Every structure is written in structure tokens, then in C-alpha cells.
């Protein structure tokens, strides 16, 4: 058990350190002078002033020293200052974090509900075929196109939902559904495959032989197998939600981290981008630790294994 915790902690440190190095690289290998990028193309600034800015930011020091300073700042929780907004990066991200968290959390909830109901409802060959075809279409469609189609049908066509804005709580529904649909499709596929595989195993026959009905077999046994398989995908799914948020927030003109990322890219605001990189790596690590903790709860086989390896 202790060995597992140490191993986990080590991989957490490696991923975060790798992310920090990646952020540093992105900040430094960029073609062009960071100071020129910072000042913008129209700025008329003398070389002396540029040198002063360079010295202030520490850009005149050797690369390795800059790297050590950067990592040192990160350890103290300092993400640097945005070139464009002249605000601490932590504040830029912190202001928009809530909006994106709401969106992705609601999307995850919708995706899980949709995938579960599809996996439970689709039992016959016909309904299974329909569900599989829908999943294929959703997985093959660009998420921003799904958003635009939903907008034209439900906002412009039927008028059920507001088009954009943030005041009205109903504005979150369409973006969250858009973001949820591809994730639900993938989750549903994995869940169904896992459940079907479990139904073919000998234990399913013995459960049926003991007189359990289909509902009991599904709820107590096969669904659990399917869910354990789907759980290993969680980090990937959360990642694709965050990536999709950039597109969905653009489609629905919602504020959030996606918009922050996009404007950091177009303005070449590299400290902000570095912050986004680190936040994303941190999320990945956090989700993985949670999954690791949840896995034994869902899957008894993992549980017995940890007991057996205990000295």
C-alpha cells in the first residue's frame, strides 16, 4: 500500500515537472523576441527600454538560470504575470475558472446520465443498432458543428433556449449538452462493450441460475463491470471536455478558460498559456488520483489484490 502511494506521488511529480518544462519551452522556443511580442507590433520603443524590460523579466540571464527561477516560482505558487493584461496569471485564470467548471461539470453529468440510460435501454438488437449508429454519428461530428446545429434548432428555430449571454441560467443548457454529446457517445460505447463482455462470462450464467432476473443481473453485476472499464477512461474524458470547452465557449460566446486560452494564443500571451498548461496537467493528475481511489470501490478484484500484497 505504502509502495503504491509512493509510486503514485512520484508519477504525479514527474507529470507536473514535465508540464512545467513544457510550459517553459513554449515560453522560450517561440520564434521572435518575447519583449517584441509583449509590446505588440505597433510599439515604437527604443532598444534601451527593451533591454530594461528584458533585465526586469530576467530574460538576459542564461537559459538554465531562467529555467531554475521559473520552476522555483512555480513551487512557490507564482505563475507569473500576463503580458497583455498586466495581471497575475493566477488571477486571470481564477476569474474564468468558475464558468468553465460549471460548464464541464454539468456536461459530465449529462454525459453520464445519457450513456447510462442508453446502455440500460438498448437491450434488443434493433435498439442497440440505433444507439450504436447515433454514437458513431456523434463521435464523427465536430463538437462546434453540433453546437451550431443545436443553436439553429433550439434557439433560433424553436426559441426554447436563449442564444447567448450568461445572466439567464438557461444559457448553460445548450453549451453543456453540446459538450456532453460526444463524451456520452464514447462513454456509452465503452459501457455497453463492458456489460456485454460481462454477460458472456460464466459468473453471469451462475447468477441467472440462482434465479436472479435480468434487472438484478444488470444492476448488481454487469453494470459494475462496464462502469469499471469506463472509469479508466475518466482522465481522457475530462481532458476532452476541457479541450472541447475551447470550441464550445467560442460557439456560444461564453466567457471561460477556453476564451482565455484562445486569446492567449492569438495575443501570444505566453505566461497565461503556461498557466493553462499547468492547470491542465494538475487536473489530469487530480482526476487520476480520484480514479485510483474510486476503483477499488467499484471493482472488488482490485480490492482483494491490495489486501493480498499487504505484507
Amino acid at each position, binding site marked *: 500500500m505504502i509502495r503504491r502511494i509512493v509510486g503514485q506521488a512520484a508519477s504525479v511529480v514527474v507529470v507536473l515537472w514535465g508540464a512545467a518544462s513544457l510550459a517553459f519551452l513554449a515560453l522560450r522556443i517561440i520564434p521572435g523576441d518575447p519583449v517584441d511580442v509583449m509590446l505588440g507590433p505597433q510599439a515604437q520603443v527604443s532598444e534601451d527600454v527593451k533591454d530594461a524590460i528584458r533585465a526586469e523579466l530576467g530574460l538576459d540571464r542564461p537559459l538554465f538560470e531562467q529555467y531554475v527561477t521559473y520552476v522555483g516560482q512555480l513551487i512557490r505558487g507564482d505563475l507569473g504575470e500576463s503580458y497583455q493584461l498586466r495581471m497575475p496569471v493566477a488571477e486571470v485564470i481564477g476569474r474564468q475558472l468558475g464558468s468553465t467548471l460549471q460548464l464541464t461539470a454539468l456536461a459530465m453529468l449529462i454525459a453520464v446520465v445519457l450513456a447510462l440510460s442508453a446502455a440500460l435501454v438498448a437491450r434488443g438488437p434493433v435498439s442497440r443498432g440505433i444507439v450504436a449508429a447515433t454514437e458513431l454519428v456523434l463521435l464523427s461530428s465536430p463538437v462546434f*458543428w453540433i453546437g451550431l*446545429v443545436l443553436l439553429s434548432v433550439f434557439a*433560433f428555430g424553436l426559441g426554447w433556449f436563449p442564444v447567448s449571454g450568461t445572466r439567464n441560467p438557461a444559457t448553460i443548457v445548450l453549451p453543456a449538452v453540446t459538450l456532453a454529446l460526444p463524451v456520452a457517445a464514447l462513454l456509452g460505447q465503452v459501457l455497453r462493450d463492458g456489460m456485454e463482455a460481462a454477460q458472456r462470462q460464466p459468473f453471469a450464467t451462475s447468477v441467472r441460475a440462482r434465479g436472479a432476473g435480468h434487472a438484478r443481473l444488470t444492476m448488481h453485476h454487469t453494470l459494475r463491470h462496464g462502469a469499471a472499464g469506463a472509469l479508466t477512461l475518466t482522465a481522457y474524458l475530462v481532458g476532452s471536455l476541457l*479541450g472541447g470547452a475551447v470550441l464550445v465557449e467560442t460557439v456560444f460566446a461564453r466567457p471561460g478558460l477556453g476564451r482565455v486560452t484562445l486569446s492567449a494564443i492569438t495575443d501570444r500571451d505566453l505566461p497565461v498559456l503556461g498557466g493553462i498548461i499547468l492547470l491542465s496537467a494538475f487536473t489530469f493528475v487530480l482526476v487520476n488520483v480520484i480514479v485510483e481511489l474510486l476503483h477499488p470501490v467499484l471493482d472488488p478484484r482490485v480490492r482483494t489484490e491490495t489486501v493480498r500484497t499487504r505484507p
Partner: protein
Amino acid sequence: MSVGRRVLFVVALLVLAIIALAAVAPDLISARDPLQTDVRGALQAPSAEHLFGTDQSGRDIFTRVVHGTGRSVGIGLLATGLALVLGLLVGTVAGIAPRIVDVAAMRVTDVLLAFPEFLVALIVVAVLGPGPLNVAIAVTLAAAPVYVRLGRVQTRTLAAAEHVEAARILGVAPVLAFVRHVVPGVLGSLSVLATIGIGSSILAAAGLSFLGLGPAEPAPEWGLMLASGRNVLAQAWWISVFPGAAITMTVISASVVGRTLRARAEGRSS
């Protein structure tokens, strides 16, 4: 393979053939000029004359979708091809290199795999700057870790396989045995992965163009056309809907063909 699956496979192949024709010779399908504007004919709904309607400048959407095929599908294909080459080179080297090189390569892929693919692509575009070629490179680097991993695993498996050992015992030089008996096998597995990966590469590339990081107006490109229709969605749904449908059709066909090929490859190996 059931009848239903076989029909689906043939239909998907047909769609891909039409897409290939549109990419290579768009004029055969639509003889109009994709850049020809017509202010008086702007925002017309789909009709017999304009199959998919017209956009804000009166350009024919059908023609633009057809002429955009080469660019949109081409970026995805290029990215997949580059990822395959990268996977083959780095994967085989990591598979036979000394442990320290192997470990270093695997740690780099570990870190890259910790990020959502789309975010990796966005960061690469941020570093390189926008443009169609940079979008292709960005999508390549985002997809590459999976190819590198598969290439490495396949190299290790095949290098220890009996037919390779037999070649060595027969006196074939190690380098020659590797090139003739290991590399083709690795290439085969990577190609199967690539046929499935084309779809997601096209989606990622379209996403980057939708955000305005790919080709610039007035070039016809599906992601870009979708973005330009966003602001007039209330009056003219067709500007965004048809290019998106083209992306979906392409990706569905590619993944149906890819999955069928994978099923066949797995059936053969087991």
C-alpha cells in the same frame, strides 16, 4: 462479416471515393468558381440552382464545400501521415535503443499524453503561429505519442518473434533482418492505427480552422466556412450546416473503413 456491415463498408468506400474525386478534381463536380461573389444573390436558401444556398457574399456553398475538400481532408491526411512516420522512426529507435534512450522517449510521451490532444495542438499553433501547414504540424504532434507507443511495443514484440530469430540464425545480418522483418510489421500496425486516426485528425484540424488558426479567408475550408456562418445562423443556417455535414460524412466513412480494416487485421493475427 454480416450483410449489414458489408453494405456499410461498401457505402463508406463509395463516399470516400467521391471525397477523393472532389479533392483531386473539384471542377468535375462543380464547375463554378468558389471565390465568385454575387452581392445581389447573398444569403439565398438552398434551391435547384444553389444546392446548398449562398453565403453573405453570394458565393455558392456547394461549390465551396466541394473545392474545400482538398484543403480540409488534405490537412488531416498530412497530419496522420506525419504522425505515422514519427511513430515509425521514434518507436523503432526507442524499441531497440539502450534503456536510457527508451526511458527518456517514454517519459516524454507520458507527459504529452497527460494533456488533452486538442490543447497540445493549440499550444503548438501558439508557438508556430497560425496557418494551414502549422495546423497540420500541430495535429501531428498532438496525435504522435500514441503512434510512438504502438511503434515501440510492436518493435519489441517483433524483434523477439520467431521468424526474426530464424532469419538471424540463417545468417542474415542483424540490421538487414531488422529492416526486412521487423520494420514492415511495425508499419502494418501503425497503418491500421492511422486509418482510424484520420477521422480524429480531420476533426482536430477543422477545430483549429474554426477558431481562425488555420487557412485564411477567402480560401474555401470547411472549419473556416462553419465559423463564418456562425454570425448569421439566425437567417441562414445552411452556411454552417452543410460544411459541418461534409466533415461528419468524411469522418464517419473513414472510421467505418478503419474499423473494418482493424477487425480484419486482428482476425488475421489471432
